[in-house]
């Protein structure tokens, strides 16, 4: 009998806690997911991209006549941000540098590509991706002679 008195109290407590947790949801919550910090979540390399800017032919070893694509995945929102891709050769030469301004909503993808009509010199290359001038990710890749 004593036990039967204690159980309802604990059940009530649990119910109270659950109800408090439920009340915290809903759109009245003025928290703004739009302020979620923007970050680079992934960088992939390949020979082609799809309409969604994701790599469709993934590789990190290219041939001299390939167009080299990098797909940069970002997550988070910002009213304005800048992605920059800096491609360098093994001797430190900057091969190319390009930027793309974005106002991402949540998950987005941005592709950068480079090509060289008379073919890439064989060797090791590096891609460094910057988000708002801060280095976000680095990828190494090779070009082999055709």
């Amino acid at each position: 009998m004593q036990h039967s008195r204690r159980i309802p109290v604990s059940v009530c407590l649990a119910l109270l806690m659950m109800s408090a947790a439920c009340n915290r949801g809903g759109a009245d919550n003025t928290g703004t997911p739009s302020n979620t910090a923007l970050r680079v979540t992934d960088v992939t390399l390949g020979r082609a991209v799809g309409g969604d800017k994701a790599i469709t032919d993934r590789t990190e070893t290219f041939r001299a006549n390939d167009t080299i694509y990098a797909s940069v995945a970002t997550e988070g929102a910002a009213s304005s941000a800048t992605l920059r891709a800096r491609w360098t050769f093994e001797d430190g030469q900057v091969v190319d540098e390009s930027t793309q301004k974005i106002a991402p909503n949540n998950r987005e993808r941005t592709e950068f590509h480079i090509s060289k009509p008379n073919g890439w010199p064989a060797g090791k290359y590096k891609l460094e991706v910057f988000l708002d001038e801060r280095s976000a990710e680095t990828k190494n890749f090779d070009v082999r002679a055709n």
Partner: protein
Amino acid sequence: MGIFDKLGGKKEEKPRADFSNVQSGSSTTAPEPSAPAPTPDPGPPVGTSGQDQTYTVVAGDSLSKIAKRYYGDANQWRRIHEANRDQITNPDLIHPGQRLKIPGSEGA
């Protein structure tokens, strides 16, 4: 250079690669930032009635805030949510740059 060659100090150096004709480009699924950051227009006075309007979301907005601004009542957020079902799946998630339809305050 000649001396080095004669002394045998340095063998033929790899010619510096030429990247002068590299072509590049980029594209994105993300919207591009509009020229100046979207600023909330001064906003219609609370209680404005009549036609639907459009509002561009800025950082820090929520449906409740927008409802408060347009209808003077944060609880009216559902009306904005309903009017924008096509682009708002989660009413807690709206994003800067989104253009929301603000239904006219019927009967107000």
